[in-house]
């Protein structure tokens, strides 16, 4: 009896919240808007090398990766060989490997296996960020909800970019393009407010990233590599000086 009432009490605050899938659909909206602007530009680039709307749409739906797709367009344009395609894709998209490692630890050990085949498709910077911001184990339905909305925006944007070309006004592209960064801030700043170590970590990461973009030599490192190097370095040192308590 006491056991049951205790459980009901624990569950009831969540019961009033939206189901995870619906929350995913809702949180997918700002991602979708940001993606639309970026993928529109991607579509214009694809059109520039002679790809048609079907090809570009398939690419966006199958890859769901911004820098990765710009690289893919370059590879197709230069008619690269298979080996070069695979190796370039690995290098440009390597940060997703780190993200998947991190998110794999957010899954309940009881989660059915097929989720481990479906979730990887959803790993983009934004969806990863929101999925890891969930407290406790991740319910994959949240990730799937976000993915459906975001990939719809991503693919539609790409196709329209190919079909319509440069018709989006500059002010709209400008405004939409910061939406994704706003989301990143909404993910990292609230925990930084609660936890001074995280706040320091965020500040240090931004400073290091800023230095990487202005200092000679470091400036030449591509964005994808910069993310990998700084993540390995800063998160690695942070884990050493401030390891998690066992219950976290």
């Amino acid at each position, binding site marked *: 009896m006491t056991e049951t009432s205790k459980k009901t009490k624990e569950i009831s605050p969540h019961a009033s919240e939206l189901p995870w899938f619906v929350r995913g659909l809702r949180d997918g909206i700002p991602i979708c808007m940001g993606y639309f602007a970026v993928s529109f530009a991607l579509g214009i680039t694809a059109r520039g090398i002679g790809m048609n709307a079907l090809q570009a749409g398939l690419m966006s739906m199958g890859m769901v990766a911004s820098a990765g797709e710009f690289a893919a367009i370059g590879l197709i344009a230069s008619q690269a*060989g298979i080996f070069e395609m695979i190796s370039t*894709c690995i290098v440009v998209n390597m940060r997703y490997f780190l993200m998947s490692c991190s998110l794999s630890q957010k899954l309940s050990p009881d989660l059915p296996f097929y989720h481990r085949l479906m979730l990887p498709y959803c790993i983009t910077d934004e969806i990863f960020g929101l999925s890891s911001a969930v407290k406790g184990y991740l319910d994959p339905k949240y990730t799937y909800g976000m993915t459906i909305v975001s990939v719809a925006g991503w693919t539609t944007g790409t196709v329209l970019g190919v079909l319509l070309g440069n018709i989006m006004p500059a002010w709209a592209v400008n405004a939409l393009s910061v939406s994704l960064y706003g989301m990143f801030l*909404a993910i990292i700043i609230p925990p930084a407010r609660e936890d001074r170590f995280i706040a320091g970590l965020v500040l240090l990461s931004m400073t290091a*990233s800023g230095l990487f973009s202005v200092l000679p030599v470091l400036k030449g490192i591509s964005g994808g590599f910069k993310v990998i190097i700084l993540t390995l370095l800063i998160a690695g040192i942070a884990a050493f000086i401030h390891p998690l308590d066992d219950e976290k």
Partner: protein
Amino acid sequence: MYPGIYLSLLIMCLTVYCIRMLPFLVFRKEITNRWVRSFLYYVPYVTLAVMTFPAIVTATDNIWSGIAALIVGLLAAWFKGDLFFVAISCCVTVFLTGLFL
């Protein structure tokens, strides 16, 4: 040898998928090593911070509207934290500053 556009797309999509999938297959159990767990816990914060700055500042035509978006985004995230609100605040900031710059 260039395999043609559709085969190229298939190969590249599969490559990207495998990069994302392998960790989910390898780390099927919860990692017990304290350092690795801590490292993976910190990864999202570092990654997203590195991707946000300085990129947000240079994302628009005008560096000042980018800086304004950063400041508004930080304040909105600090005081409200709601995802949609923060994202929209940044967009509106860029739009409004764009009218004057």
